[in-house]
């Protein structure tokens, strides 16, 4: 037989089921959010890294201008500092994704798909390895080329040969950037198919793993050794690339997401902490008289403290029983959907122990700490005071200016209109200021997080707008080589509907670092600074190009992620067509790292590259900008140039480019929507729980109101108005707090993804959605317990403890 005091604990838990349920739910929802976010963050960061490691990723890539054979590959493999090496043929081709609409595709040729040592490709669906004269498509690329397994597609090679090929299956190639993110689909064919396509076999891409793959600097040196070796046998090297150890192809997005999840994890943890503190304080306030009675019959502080600590720990334990399994389920579902976006199979979905432990600490230890403060304060007062104060409050209301202001004495409408119940609600709201403050902090945090999540989403759209706004044209065509600018423009103007044309130079450059190593490929656009079709892109700092500028460049902020030693005003050495030139960074534009971009003056670039008067890119502005006419014009332009013997490389329409840029953010936006729903759940249930506990606490007061003749509806009205008043205050404070909070989130997401904060945009729609939610939830949260209380008889209500 256990001691009687523990029966009180048990009976309190079981006896007041509504209260227990509300407290447990309020705690559980916060713990659930913490569990989902922290576990998903850990699964993603660890699971993706493990999955990536499983493909034996290369630490460096060397691309050759000419093809090489197995013998050279074997010699690279035998190098002392090379742990492993593998080679492929990367064939640039185009694929028809709709009648007359072609898209660039990279086709890989591997001699033996089952013997790949580096950057392993796995079978996914259908045939494996690729059968002769058929093609496998990377699984994430099917949606980009609008095709299914079994379809036959037309492939156009650089030599203008067009072949029809059946898609006989899909492959899983995690080393490539997911097609929906960078827009490039990947295909895989056999060496026999390469013969059939009219190309002779040979490799042009070498994947290397250095002997110490964890050391990026060492990897770079090894790649340089391989590059030197290739150059010694007469190969030209247009590109070398070194990856950070274990860095995934879409690491920037992943880092942005992890940063976002980290911040939201901390926010939901704080929210959870306040929910716990709030509910425990409400519980102790409600039990104040009983504490007084127990002290009066000889209960010591230690005994009572033990009872209430066990009680709050029991609430925490129940909440954990709900939150841990649901959190595990939620974290796995979230990780799975993120992995799908990243085109990754998660090797492990193990929930990290730290996440469970943290939930346990928040769920068990925190309520104990939270209850210590109100408990100690309730211990300070004598049992006599505890018992006499309980019934309808301390009676200190009216002693400060806020109380006097809302007393209604000085409010003209209080005299002329029947607003007594409104004023009573308002005064009730402010009566217990400590509790109000605690409730408001909790709800404000929830409101601010919800609105901030919406604001980050809106800021992402604004950032895309900023990034795209400098394109004042509809179609951009790049050519296989430079042509006379005048010829390009004259041909375009023959097409009906063409409004304006302009040309520029577009080339790929690489940074040559002070140690002689080369950075990743950078797209350099060299327009005329006074072009009508290109205005200044959104600048994070510095200025746009002037006609008088010579070796000046405006670089996209993403460059600084890869080259952190650079900053505005620095000189940068760039390799253009094999020669090195020094440029000065005069401006920084906002941009993602997928295809880092820089801008230079046409006159200067065309002069140093001996291409004065020539261009390799054409911009066309149409008189109508709807997607259909732009698309048909782009196809017509491509045919026009090809029929005139000019080699078209790519045809891009700006609405597709925009969709592409948005697709990069889609993953984050989807995650943000999940987070917004989660925060709404936490904030909403927190709001409902807090309000309901507040009303339950005042059941006796409801009895008094009814005893003095207030009708049921009137009583409910007083409490609903009070709930709405608290809800609206939290919304207002939350909307204000969301201003800096969104800024912090924008900084975290933007910096990890683009090296600069996102273009700030406060989400008014998010604010309004939350206003409606707050109104609805406050009403519901106050109505249900107030209605229940008003249904009791006056005698029952007055006897309520």
């Amino acid at each position: 037989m256990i001691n009687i005091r523990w029966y009180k604990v048990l009976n309190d838990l079981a006896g007041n089921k509504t209260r227990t349920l509300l407290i447990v739910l309020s705690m559980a929802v916060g713990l659930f959010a913490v569990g989902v976010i922290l576990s998903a963050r850990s699964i993603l960061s660890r699971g993706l890294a493990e999955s990536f490691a499983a493909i034996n990723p290369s630490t460096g890539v060397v691309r050759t201008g000419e093809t090489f054979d197995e013998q050279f590959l074997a010699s690279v493999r035998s190098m002392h500092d090379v742990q492993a090496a593998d080679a492929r043929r990367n064939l640039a081709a185009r694929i028809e994704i709709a009648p007359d609409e072609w898209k660039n595709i990279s086709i890989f040729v591997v001699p033996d798909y089952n013997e790949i040592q580096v950057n392993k490709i796995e079978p996914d669906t259908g045939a494996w390895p690729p059968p002769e004269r058929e093609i496998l498509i990377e699984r994430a690329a099917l949606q980009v080329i609008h095709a299914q397994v079994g379809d036959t597609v037309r492939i156009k090679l650089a030599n203008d040969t067009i072949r029809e090929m059946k898609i006989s299956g899909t492959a899983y190639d995690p080393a490539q950037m997911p097609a929906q993110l960078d827009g490039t689909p990947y295909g895989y064919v056999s060496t026999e198919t390469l013969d059939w396509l009219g190309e002779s076999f040979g490799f042009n891409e070498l994947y290397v793993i250095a002997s110490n793959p964890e050391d990026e600097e060492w990897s770079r040196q090894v790649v340089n050794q391989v590059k030197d070796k290739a150059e010694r046998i007469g190969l030209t090297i247009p590109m070398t690339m070194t990856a950070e150890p274990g860095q995934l192809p879409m690491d920037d997005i992943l880092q942005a997401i992890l940063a976002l999840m980290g911040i939201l994890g901390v926010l939901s943890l704080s929210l959870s902490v306040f929910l716990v503190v709030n509910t425990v304080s409400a519980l102790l306030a409600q039990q104040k008289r009983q504490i007084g009675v127990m002290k009066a019959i000889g209960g010591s502080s230690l005994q009572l403290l033990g009872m209430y600590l066990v009680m709050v720990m029991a609430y925490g334990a129940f909440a954990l029983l709900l939150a841990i399994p649901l959190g595990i389920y939620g974290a796995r579902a979230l990780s799975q959907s993120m992995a799908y976006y990243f085109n990754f199979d998660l090797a492990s979905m193990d929930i990290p122990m730290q996440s469970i432990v943290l939930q346990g600490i928040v769920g068990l230890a925190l309520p104990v700490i939270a209850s210590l403060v109100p408990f100690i304060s309730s211990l300070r007062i004598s049992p006599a005071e505890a018992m006499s104060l309980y019934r309808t409050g301390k009676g200190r209301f009216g002693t400060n200016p806020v109380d006097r202001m809302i007393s209604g004495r000085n409010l003209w409408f209080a005299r002329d209109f029947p607003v007594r119940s409104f004023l009573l609600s308002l005064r009730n709201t402010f009566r217990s200021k400590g509790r109000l403050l605690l409730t408001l902090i909790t709800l404000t945090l929830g409101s601010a997080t919800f609105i901030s999540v919406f604001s980050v989403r809106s800021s992402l759209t604004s950032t895309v707008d900023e990034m795209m706004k400098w394109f004042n044209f509809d179609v951009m065509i790049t050519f296989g080589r430079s042509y006379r600018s005048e010829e390009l423009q004259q041909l375009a103007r023959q097409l009906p509907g063409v409004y304006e044309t302009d040309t520029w130079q577009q080339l790929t450059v690489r940074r040559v670092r002070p140690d002689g190593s080369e950075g990743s490929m950078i797209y350099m656009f060299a327009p005329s600074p006074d072009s009508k079709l290109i205005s200044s892109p959104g600048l994070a700092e510095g200025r746009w190009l002037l006609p008088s500028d010579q070796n000046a460049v405006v670089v996209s902020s993403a460059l600084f992620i890869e080259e952190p030693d650079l900053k505005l005003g620095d000189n940068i050495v760039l390799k253009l067509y094999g020669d090195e030139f020094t440029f000065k960074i005069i401006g920084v534009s906002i941009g993602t790292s997928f295809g880092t971009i820089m801008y230079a003056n046409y006159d200067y670039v065309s002069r140093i590259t001996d291409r004065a008067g020539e261009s390799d890119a054409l911009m066309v502005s149409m008189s109508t900008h709807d997607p259909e006419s732009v698309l048909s014009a782009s196809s017509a332009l491509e045919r026009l140039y090809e029929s005139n013997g000019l080699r078209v490389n790519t045809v891009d329409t700006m609405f597709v480019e925009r969709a592409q840029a948005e697709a990069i953010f889609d993953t984050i936006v989807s995650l943000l929507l999940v987070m917004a729903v989660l925060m709404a759940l936490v904030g909403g249930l927190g709001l409902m729980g807090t309000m309901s506990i507040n009303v339950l606490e005042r059941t006796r007061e409801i009895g008094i109101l009814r005893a003095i003749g207030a009708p049921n509806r009137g009583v409910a009205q007083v409490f609903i108005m009070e709930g709405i008043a608290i809800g609206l205050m939290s919304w207002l404070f939350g909307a204000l707090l969301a201003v800096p909070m969104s800024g912090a989130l924008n900084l975290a997401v933007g910096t990890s993804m683009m090296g600069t904060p996102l273009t700030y945009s406060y989400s008014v729609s998010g604010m309004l959605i939350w206003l409606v939610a707050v109104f609805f939830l406050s009403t519901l949260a106050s109505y249900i317990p107030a209605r229940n209380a008003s249904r009791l008889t006056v005698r029952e209500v007055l006897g309520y403890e």
Partner: protein
Amino acid sequence: MTSLKSDPKNKKKKLDKGHWISLKQVVKIYPSLAGPVTALKGIDLQIDRGDFAVIAGKSGSGKTTLINMISGLDGLSSGEIWIGEVALHQFDPESAAHWRGINIGVVFQTFDLLPTLTILQNVMLPMDFARRNNPPQQRERALQLLKQVDILEHAYKTPSALSGGQQQRAAIARAMANDPMLLLADEPTGSLDSSTADSILDIFETLTDQGTTVILVTHDRDVARRGSRVITLSDGEIVHPS
């Protein structure tokens, strides 16, 4: 209430005559919005063992404050309270709670039984707090007390299932759980009808006969007449000591 009288086990220690409870210049000042309010203005009072003392007076006269001082439920502003050799005014709240749990039983106007415990459990609780006996012994004693106050059949009900009179009987049984020397009752009949109130007062008389000192607070003259001694308070001062 014959059951208490007929039980020989309830015959207590032989009464020592002489002042057992002694209050010397007890002052209690409460802070309030309008400034400090002196609820007790230097009370001097002696109560003997076995007395059924009634503290009477109008509302606001300081009756409840006085009983709270004697029970240690509230601290005094100045003065001394002695119960036997024990200087209650020197106790800190924690020691006061412990001492009270063993030596004083308290009964409130609104019964104040814990709503989530059964009547039996309510009576066992003070014994648990005082760490007296093991749970089965506590249960046996509680059942015995409930039998003495004639509500044994309600032992396993919760307070809300009982009438006001029955709840007050349970509250008296709870107050007697640790066999205290002193029972303090603050308006114990204030929420009851007159016939129920009479039966409750019978219990107090019986307890007094068995040696328990009872101090009862009331504003009701009829109730006051049942005491062996009436102390009348007015504006925080004793105006009629006996």
